[in-house]
């Protein structure tokens, strides 16, 4: 169900139902060793309201890079206690059009022509946005 975002409480429940190992300090950490020996893991701040929704910009990173799921749908399946497919071995991110926040930055902050924007990879565009915020103002 792309577009739907879970609450932090649902992320906790997913981890518990999928057999993640929990360790607690002032945060809850969930870890799991996958079948190829690599690991998945996430962290929930204890001050975070269970009902608070995971921010839109972080959710894709959480399901893909922390929970290591093959697709977003796996999360909702796993939340219901079903078996999930982990992304083993890690697949390269497919080439996709630049997300809107990157094209907006390239157009509105850097005033790049459309042709240059179209030629930039997602990684290169993200690097430019990172540089912009960290004060480096890197040139494309």
């Amino acid at each position, binding site marked *: 169900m792309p577009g739907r975002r879970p609450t932090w409480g649902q992320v906790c429940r997913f981890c518990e139902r999928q057999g993640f190992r929990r360790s607690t*300090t002032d945060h809850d950490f969930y870890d799991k060793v996958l079948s190829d020996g690599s690991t998945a893991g996430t962290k929930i701040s204890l001050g975070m309201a269970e009902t608070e929704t995971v*921010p839109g*910009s*972080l959710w894709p*990173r959480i399901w893909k890079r922390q929970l290591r799921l093959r697709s977003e749908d796996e999360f909702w399946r796993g939340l219901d206690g079903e078996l999930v497919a982990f992304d083993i071995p890690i697949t390269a991110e497919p080439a996709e059009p630049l997300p809107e926040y990157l094209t907006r930055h390239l157009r509105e902050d850097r005033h790049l022509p459309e042709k240059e924007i179209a030629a930039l990879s997602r990684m290169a565009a993200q690097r430019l946005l*990172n540089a912009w915020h*960290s004060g*480096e103002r890197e040139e494309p």
Partner: protein
Amino acid sequence: MSLVDEIQFSHAKAHLSAVMDDVVHRDRLTAIRRERGRDEVMYLLPREVLDAALGTVAFTIDYLPDEEGIGLWVNDLEIGAHGTDVPEAQARLLSEVRAYVTNFLGQFPVYLTWPDRARLVPQVLRLAVARDEEQLARLLFGGEET
């Protein structure tokens, strides 16, 4: 045989001040060995050597704007934080990173047996030995030394 100067635990215990002088003031790497049924060794090194060893470790932070503000993500460590603006997100990320490092150090006996976590040890150590909040922020977000 190790190339590092090695002393026995009992000697180190009796001469700790001199051992520390050698390490800290004369930049002498030292291994302390203890025979206790099994071979145990620990290494002492001055801060400058550790800084040099970890000096090339770098961090990349992705800035991810969304409808509610901005998310920040530390690549490789795979941790993030969100705020309504960049300063708020940075402050939250610092807190997340501190928690992550503290947990990682506490979980060493487990994480060292997991290869994809063990490879993060240089990054975790680099953050762990930051002298203060300001240096931690500089490591993550860049900026000039003051």
